[in-house]
C-alpha cells in the first residue's frame, strides 16, 4: 500500500428520482477504521452506503484504493468491497453453509464447482465469527431473523474484502451477538480491513466504533471520534432527544432520555 486512503469520497449530490437524498459529502477513510454511520431515519445512511458500493448513480467521486468505483468491473469491485443490505430476504431455502459459500463465488474466476481449501477455510472462519457454524445445514427460511442476519453477514465476511459495507447489521441481534458483531468488526480493523456500518444504537456506536459520521438530511453534521461526535447538544439537535453521556471503565456510555421540545 502506498499510503493511499482506502476510501476517498467526494460526493456532490445523489438523486433518487428528482429528489436530492444526499448533498456534498467529503471524507477519507483509512485502512483499519470501523466507521459508524449515524443519523435519524431518512438521513441518507443507506443511500451513502449504496453509493460507496457503486450501486447508485451519483454526482461526484468515490475512489477505492485510488480507483474510481464506477471504472471497476464487477468482479474487481467484489474483490474490494463486500456489501450487506438492510433487507434480509433470501429467495430460496438455501442452507446457511451454501449461502455463506456464495461469498466465495464473488472471488472465484473459474466455473469450477468445487470450493478450494482456501475457500473452505474462509467459509468456516466466517461462520465461526458470526456464531452460525451450528446452523450450517439449516435452510435460511427456518432461521430466526437475527440468525439469518448473522448468516448474511458471514456471507460478506467470507468474501474477505478490504472494505465491508453493512446496513444496520446490529438490528435484530441479541445483546451477546451485537457485542460479538462489533468485536468481530474491530478485529477486522486490527487486521487492516475497514468496516463502514450504519446503525441506530448510540451505545454500541460509542463503545465500539473507532470513528462516527453523523448524517442529517443528507449532510454530514459531525465526523470524528465517538467522544467528539456524541455530545448532548449534537444528539439533541439531530435526533431531538436528550441524552446522558458518561465515561465508564475507559469507554463511552450513551443513554438516550427524553424527546426534547426544542426541535
Amino acid at each position, binding site marked *: 500500500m502506498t499510503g493511499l486512503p482506502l476510501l476517498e469520497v467526494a460526493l456532490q449530490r445523489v438523486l433518487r428520482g428528482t429528489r436530492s437524498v444526499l448533498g456534498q459529502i467529503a471524507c477519507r477513510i483509512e485502512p483499519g477504521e470501523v466507521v459508524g454511520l449515524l443519523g435519524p431515519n431518512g438521513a441518507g445512511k443507506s443511500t451513502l452506503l449504496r453509493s460507496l458500493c457503486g*450501486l447508485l448513480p451519483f454526482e461526484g467521486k468515490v475512489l477505492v484504493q485510488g480507483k474510481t468505483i464506477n471504472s471497476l468491473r464487477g468482479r474487481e*469491485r467484489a474483490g474490494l468491497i463486500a456489501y450487506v*443490505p438492510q433487507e434480509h430476504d433470501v*429467495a*430460496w431455502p*438455501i442452507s446457511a453453509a451454501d*449461502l455463506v459459500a*456464495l461469498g466465495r*463465488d464473488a472471488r472465484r474466476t473459474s466455473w469450477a464447482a468445487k470450493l478450494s481449501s482456501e475457500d473452505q477455510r474462509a467459509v468456516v472462519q466466517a461462520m465461526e465469527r458470526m456464531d452460525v457454524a451450528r446452523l450450517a445445514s439449516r435452510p435460511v427460511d427456518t432461521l430466526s431473523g437475527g440468525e439469518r442476519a448473522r448468516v*448474511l453477514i458471514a456471507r460478506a465476511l467470507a468474501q474477505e474484502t478490504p472494505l465491508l459495507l453493512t446496513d444496520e447489521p446490529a438490528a435484530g441481534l441479541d445483546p451477546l451477538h451485537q457485542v460479538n458483531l462489533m468485536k468481530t468488526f474491530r478485529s477486522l480493523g486490527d487486521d487492516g480491513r475497514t468496516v463502514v456500518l450504519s446503525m441506530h444504537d448510540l451505545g454500541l456506536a460509542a463503545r465500539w466504533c473507532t470513528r462516527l459520521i453523523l448524517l442529517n438530511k443528507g449532510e454530514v453534521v459531525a465526523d470524528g471520534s465517538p467522544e467528539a461526535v456524541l455530545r448532548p447538544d449534537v444528539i439533541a439537535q439531530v435526533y431531538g432527544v436528550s441524552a446522558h453521556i458518561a465515561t465508564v471503565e475507559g469507554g463511552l456510555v450513551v443513554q438516550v432520555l427524553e424527546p426534547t421540545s426544542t426541535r
Partner: protein
Amino acid sequence: MNPRLSHRLLITGLVLLVILTFLLSLFSGPASFGVWESLQALMSDDAGSIALIMHEIRLPRALLGLMVGFTLGLSGAVLQGYLRNPLAEPGLIGVSASASLGAVLALYTGLSVLFPLALPLAALAAAVVSVLVVQFLAGASGSFVTIILAGVAVSTFATAMTSLVLNLSPNPYAALEIMFWMLGSLEDRSFEHVMLAAPAMILGWVMLLGVGRGLDALALGRDTAASMGVNLRQAQFLAIFGTAAAVGAATSVTGSIGFVGLVVPHLLRPWTRSLPSRLLLASGLGGAALILAADVLVRLVAPERGLKLGVVTAVIGAPFFLALVWRSRRQMI
C-alpha cells in the same frame, strides 16, 4: 451425502429417465411393431414402411419432445431464479402467447403458404418483439415486479389477439388451430420442424445456461448480487432473450405447452439444495422427460381423439404441484 456426488447422481438419474422416455416415445404409436423391429428399422437405410415410420414420424416427434421439454424446463428454472419468483415461467413474460400469435398470423395471412419458413420465423419474431416490449417497459435492469407486470400485459394482449385473428378467420378449421396453438402438440411434426427450431433453441440454451452462477447471488437480492460482481443488465438480457429464442422456437413448431416450465423446477428444487444454478440442467432434463412421457400418454390413452399435449402435461403436473403445495403448507404450520 457428499453434495457434489448427490448432484451427479441426480443428473445421471435424470439422463437415464430422459433416455427411457425417449425410447418409450419411439416405441409408441398407432402402428405397433416390436421393440427389436423398430430399433432395426431405425438403424437401417432401407425404405420399408417400418423404417419410414420410424425415421419420418417417430424420431422427429421424440427429438422435438426432448428439445421442447428441455427448453421449457430450463427457461422455467432460469426465469424463476432470475425473477426470484416461484411462479415465474416462460408464459409469464409473454413469450409463448406472442409466439403463438406470430404463428397464427403467418397462417391466416397466407404467408406460410407462400413461404414455409414464414410460420416459425413469424413466431420467433413475435416472441422477440414481445420481450423487446417487456424490456422497454421494465428498463435494462428493471425491477422484478415491472418485468412480471409487463409480461402479463403482453401475454394477455397476445392471447386476445390470437383469439381475434382466429375469430375473424373464414377457415372452418380455425377451432382446431386454436387448440393446437393454445394447448400444444407434437403430432405430425417432421425433421423440417426439428431443423427449423434447432438453431434458435440451441442459441437460447447457451444464453440461458450462461446466466448460471449469477442466479445464486440474485437469491440474495439485486443489490447484493451486483455487489458480488453479477452484471445485472447482462443477466437480464441473457434470461429474457434466451427465453425468447428458445421458447419462441419451441412454440413456433409445437404451439404453447403450459405448466412444464412452472412445475419441473419446483419438483427438482429440493434435490438441488435450492441453489438456482444447480437447478438449470436438472430442470431441463426433467422437462424433457416430462414432455416425452406426456407425449407417450397422449398416444396410449386416446390415440384417435388427438388429445393435446398441453392438456396431458397439466394433468400430470397439477397433482404433483398440489402435493408440493400441500407439503410446504404443512411445513409452515
